[in-house]
Structure formats: structure tokens, C-alpha cells
């Protein structure tokens, strides 16, 4: 049996194997500032998410209310702090 080459995008597994975490990957959930605009990355690549990730993800798309989230002053919040606060919020919601 001769082996035949199949084009790239025919098998879902082969595609997923590549596109989910390879190539140019932008770290999720880190606040950034581009030309003074506050941006946030979104983890859109979660297939089997941990509960924590799922909740963050759900919050991002507006499925859960952001409980007691600190008001963010543009250009003022520290990235790490924001990340920590976010986690804290998730814990509150879960508990």
C-alpha cells in the first residue's frame, strides 16, 4: 500500500494539533497597552477548560456577572494585580 499525501486541512485532529497552541501565541489574560489603549487578551483556545479557566472565560463573554470587580482606571492598573483580582472574583463566584 503506497502512502498518499493528504492536504493539510482535511483532518480535524491534525488541524487542532497545530492551531491551538502552536505558531504565534499570545498569552492570555494579561492586560496590555497599545498606543495607550488598554487591551486584554482572551483565551479563546480552551477546549477542555479547568473550572477556573472556564469561569474566567465565561466572565469574558459576559455569561457571568463580574462581581465586585475593581473599577479600572485606564492606564493605572497593574497587570499582575489585575490578574490576581480577576482570580479572586472567580473564587468569590464559585464559593
Amino acid at each position: 500500500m503506497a502512502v498518499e499525501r493528504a492536504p493539510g486541512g482535511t483532518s480535524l485532529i491534525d488541524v487542532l494539533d497545530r492551531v491551538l497552541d502552536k505558531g504565534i501565541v499570545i498569552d492570555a489574560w494579561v492586560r496590555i497597552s497599545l498606543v495607550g489603549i488598554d487591551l486584554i487578551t482572551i483565551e479563546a483556545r480552551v477546549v477542555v477548560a479547568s473550572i477556573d479557566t472556564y469561569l474566567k472565560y465565561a466572565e469574558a463573554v459576559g455569561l457571568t456577572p463580574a462581581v465586585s470587580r475593581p473599577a479600572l482606571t485606564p492606564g493605572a492598573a497593574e497587570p499582575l494585580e489585575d490578574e490576581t483580582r480577576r482570580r479572586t472574583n472567580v473564587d468569590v463566584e464559585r464559593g
Partner: protein
Amino acid sequence: MITEKQISPEAEPSHADAAAEGKYVYCIIEAAEPRSFGPMGIGGRGDEVYTVHHKGLAAVVSNTPIVVYDPTRENVFAHEQVNETVMREFTVLPMAFGALFRTEEDIIELMRGTYDALRDVLAKMEGKVEFGLKVNWDRDRVIAELEQENEEIRHLKEQITSRTTGSTYFARMQLGRLVETALTDQADAYIREVYSVLRDTAVASRANKPIGDRMIMNAAFLIEREREAEFDQKVKEVAAKYEGKLSFKYTGPWPPYNFVHIRLKLERGEGTTEAIAR
């Protein structure tokens, strides 16, 4: 990437901005002139796929509502189809699935911040594409063969089956270990042989974790486009050599996902970029 403003209740109290428009980014290429690749954007609306430029670099993008894309069949194929289309004419640095930006300015800013790294990796990927090669075997059949061919295993197996008194527990444990070791050795030997046939034609290779217990090799190879036919030939050669023993699943050309390793750690006010071309 999506802006905080779009998803933050503090910044936008209403949920009406679910309809806000952003840009989905598929890959980065080198192109000076604006290009259009057809109405094949992610999201099923038939959005035109076009380029956003910065100093000779271009991001291939399409308009999209700002939503989080789940990696469904439809969505990942849309992402991949665009990359494969662009790849026919350009060397691409593929983005991982799901990168959204709010505006073209943000994308330009990203290219500005990572310019040197992108240029460097693009130069390394110039004229190269990726091929996938998965090698499977029939594990049970290999075990049956080992039981025939491996003296030690055969002997122990005979002992176990012929013993009429006493426990065979330890003998069976020992047999299990022997078989396991022999399987690993056999798989390693096959993998080495397959690599040795293909190595000279490839620029680079990467071994990924095999999926499931039938797979013994899950590799990606970076190949110069002009040596594609030669690589095809080598794969066919090696497949013919192990016919009946190993089955090969050969795919490509792919964008060089396995060889473009760029993690962007974006922080407030400054972008730190780490880029390694492997």
C-alpha cells in the same frame, strides 16, 4: 485579543457591544501591497480576508464581531483554510487560533512591537513548508511476533502455559515487563530508521507526543518547497519498506506551525517578545 472596554461592565455598562466589530488575525506575511484573499473569513458571514500593513509586514485579517471563537470544526477549518490559501503565495507565520483585535491600529502596533522578531522568523521560514508524518503499528500483531521471535519471551510464555502447579504470578509479571521493554525497543528502532531515511531531505524535524497506543511516531518536518517532491519520494520509500508492519499518515503542506514558536507576553505599556525559530 479583545479590548477590556468591550467586555468590561465598568467601561461599557450595556451588553449592546456584543455587536462590536473587531479583526480576526490568521497569520503574518511579508507583503508591501494590499491583498485580498476572498470572502472566506471566520464566522460564516463571508467576510473578505485582507491585509493590514506595517513596514513590509502584513497581517492577514478579516472583520468579525467581537466574540470568543470556540475551536469548533467550522471555526478551526476556517482559520486553517485561510492560512493554506495565503500559503500558496506567501511564506506565512501562522497565528494560533482565536486572536482577535479591536482595530487595525492595534494590529499595526503589535507588528511594530514585534517587528524584529517577526522579520527574523520570516526570514528563517522563507520558502519552507511543514509536513506531518504519523506512524502507526498494530500493537497486538507486534506482540504476537515478539512472542514468536524473542527467545526469552517465548521461553517464559511456554513456562507459564505449561505450568500446572504453583502460582504463575511472578512469571506473568516478568513476561509483561519483557514485552513492554521489547515493544519500546522495537518502536525506537522503527523511529530511528524512519528518521534516518527522511533526515537529509528535511531542514528540521520535531517529534510530538504520539496520540493513542497505536501511534509510535508523530512528527513534523520542515521542508524547502523545492525539495517537496524529493521528500514525497522518501516518505513513499520508507512506507514501502515497512509495508505490512507500519502504516503512515502523511499530510501537508502545512503552514510551519511546529517550527514557528513565538510567545507574545504582552504587558501594559511595553511588549516583551520572545521568538525562537526551531
